[in-house]
């Protein structure tokens, strides 16, 4: 049988393929009630968020939620940018990646929620004031709080008991809790067998955007106006107090030898030496969920002061829910109101790294943890009182700034360079970068902030 693939056959095949392809297309655009939520791929958060979406769509059957996740950090920001570039902005997202809210404000990624809040008389009295202030730029509120944590000092109560040491205080006003006392404890809690360290006094869990250490000595790496407008030409790394604080931090590893080196910490994977019961104290933002996985008695305490005058010692990270500009704003607003309402918060806070921003639910959130709730509440309240928001949330171009800081401080963290040498190398480069970011964004700043001084 001589069968030919004729031109007619080809046209038939092409028409059939086209019809098949086209039949799949309407799903992309016709369902106007589909809400795209873009999030990081944190398994605990995803589980509780999915539960909250199921509850929301049960109450609001006209909506469906398309929940997409990406890796955290800079990769998540790259995908977020691609969503906006493609004209498919997410209805709901958050500053859970590397860039902070202010970066999104400058790039017109987020919707001003003030008119919606006023129209619906959305009650925000249950949120911490600091959270609302953090999300407000030029008198416009761009986010609704979903959680917040001031970084405390976590500690292993079992190891403190074994060493016969008193627990660190929960009271942030306690002037006896100083860096030197903490160092004394760290030495007492460090154990060695010959050349090997078998137990560490303290772990530097992360560098906390580098601002944490100067804050213990009453300094900051950027001036205040940087955080007011998200732009600055100045930084404080040349300040001897900042340099000294960074040196004190790395001395814990290389001089005092009470903290593990980066390679030792790296060998323990995500949960690190603290969660493995091999370190007594731990300074790490968002570690409530980490500490909560530990199989020992743990507690949270105030951060010590390096200098008696140091009041603002805790780095706070306050997370908002954001609504993508150009998205289905009304649908997104319905979802955000649910997620930040009491029912939604009760569901998602079980897996949330930053807990809840609703003061009325804080007791319930801490109640699920092993330390006494009143202790954790005291540490949280004191942390907010003695805390400052993390620079990454309120500084434009943080991704590039953070990359520069990390690369210039690498050798300091590895013990191959002093803090002074690291700062000497960093400072001129940071001057150039900050000026570049400032000049590039100054016009936008003038449109966002009527009182912008530049």
């Amino acid at each position: 049988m001589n069968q030919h693939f004729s031109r007619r056959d080809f046209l038939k095949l092409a028409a059939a393929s086209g019809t098949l392809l086209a039949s799949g297309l309407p799903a992309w655009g016709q369902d106007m009630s589909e809400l795209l939520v873009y999030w990081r791929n944190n398994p605990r958060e995803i589980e509780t968020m999915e539960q909250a979406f199921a509850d929301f769509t049960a109450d609001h059957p006209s909506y469906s939620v398309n929940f997409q996740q990406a890796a955290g950090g800079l990769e998540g920001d790259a995908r977020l940018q691609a969503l906006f570039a493609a004209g498919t902005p997410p209805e709901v997202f958050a500053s859970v990646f590397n860039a902070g809210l202010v970066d999104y404000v400058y790039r017109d990624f987020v919707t001003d929620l003030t008119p919606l809040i006023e129209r619906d008389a959305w009650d925000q009295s249950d949120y911490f004031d600091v959270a609302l202030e953090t999300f407000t730029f030029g008198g416009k509120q761009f986010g609704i709080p979903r959680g917040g944590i001031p970084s405390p000092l976590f500690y292993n109560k079992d190891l403190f008991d074994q060493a016969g040491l008193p627990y660190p205080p929960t009271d942030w006003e306690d002037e006896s809790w100083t860096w030197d006392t903490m160092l004394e404890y760290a030495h007492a809690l460090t154990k060695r067998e010959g050349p090997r360290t078998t137990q560490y006094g303290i772990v530097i869990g992360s560098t906390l955007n580098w601002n944490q250490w100067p804050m213990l000595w009453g300094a900051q790496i950027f001036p205040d106006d940087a955080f007011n407008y998200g732009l600055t030409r100045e930084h404080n790394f040349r300040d001897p107090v900042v340099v000294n604080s960074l040196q004190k931090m790395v001395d814990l590893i290389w001089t005092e030898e009470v903290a593990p080196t980066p390679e030792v910490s790296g060998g323990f994977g995500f949960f690190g030496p603290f969660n493995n019961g091999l370190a007594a104290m731990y300074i790490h933002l968002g570690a409530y969920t980490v500490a909560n996985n530990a199989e020992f008695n743990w507690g949270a305490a105030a951060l010590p002061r390096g200098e008696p005058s140091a009041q603002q010692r805790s780095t706070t990270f306050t997370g908002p829910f954001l609504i993508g500009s150009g998205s289905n704003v009304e649908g997104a607003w319905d979802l955000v109101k649910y997620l930040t309402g009491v029912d939604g918060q009760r569901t998602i806070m079980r897996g949330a790294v930053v807990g809840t921003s609703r003061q009325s639910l804080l007791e319930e959130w801490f109640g699920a943890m092993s330390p006494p709730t009143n202790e954790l509440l005291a540490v949280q309240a004191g942390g907010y009182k003695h805390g400052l928001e993390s620079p990454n949330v309120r500084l434009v171009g943080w991704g590039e700034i953070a990359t520069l800081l990390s690369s210039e401080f690498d050798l300091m963290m590895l013990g191959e360079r002093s803090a002074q040498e690291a700062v000497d190398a960093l400072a001129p480069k940071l001057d150039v970068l900050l000026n570049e970011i400032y000049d590039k964004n100054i016009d936008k700043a003038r449109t966002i902030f009527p009182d912008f001084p530049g």
Partner: protein
Amino acid sequence: MRSREAMYLYLFIAPGLLGMILFHLAPMIVSFGLSFSEYEITSPPEFVGFQNYHRMLFVDELVGKSLSVTAVYAVVGVPIRLFLQLFIAMLLNRQLAGIRIFRAILYFPSVVAGVAIALGWILLLNPTYGAVNHLLWELFGIIGPRWLNSTQWVIPGLLLMSLWGIGPGIVINLAGLQGISAELYEAAEIDGAGSFRKFLHITLPMMSPILMFNLVMGIVSNFQIFTQAYVMTSGGPANSSLFFVLYLYRNAFEFFKMGYASALAWLLFAIILIMTLAVFRSSPLWVYYEAKRERT
């Protein structure tokens, strides 16, 4: 009939051709245009003339740094891998019992995803708990280096890891070795040639087209290395593993400087093109093509 055949030809090459035009050629043309602009994706590109190229060539010190890191990795890594690929292929070319199993074992790592390999090697190269330093101490009494945490050892560490993926090169070499006529070796043996002579005067010339292919592919892939540094070191410590493509990626997708990243991409394209042309131009001096020789 010829027109029908032509139609089939175009029909069957159409998907590939369209893919190449849409996903390679068109983006290349667009990126060339973008390299003369400031472009943040979410706002329209703004023409800036040669500003990106000026910054890249005369201002940005990380361009030189990342190029030198990449060049060192390629210059050291490519010859080592070429040698090992040929050497192991020769070992696997022997007619021994169970040789197929050895071939499979040596190829197997190549099918593992790059990110999975990278994560595994982070643990293997951990200075304190990693297997590599443990073996160095147990077998040779050597205290191993800090590998990924050392500016001096991070590139050797990544080179060591790259040997994990030489399987495809071995297979190509093995195919080439099996294509060499046994008569050539027999004739050489009759003339009294030893193993080294046979390797130098038969194996190496006959394998030279394969070696050239692997060299070109090695240059291209080594100058485009990304995953290992992205996953394992983030370019650190202190930018000592900041490969060029990682720096390009950062500018494009982390710092949102798409125009500048496009200029960087064209610099990389030019470098790879020049190096590849240099290899092709030099090939008459060291590559032996049996078929060509037979025709002349």
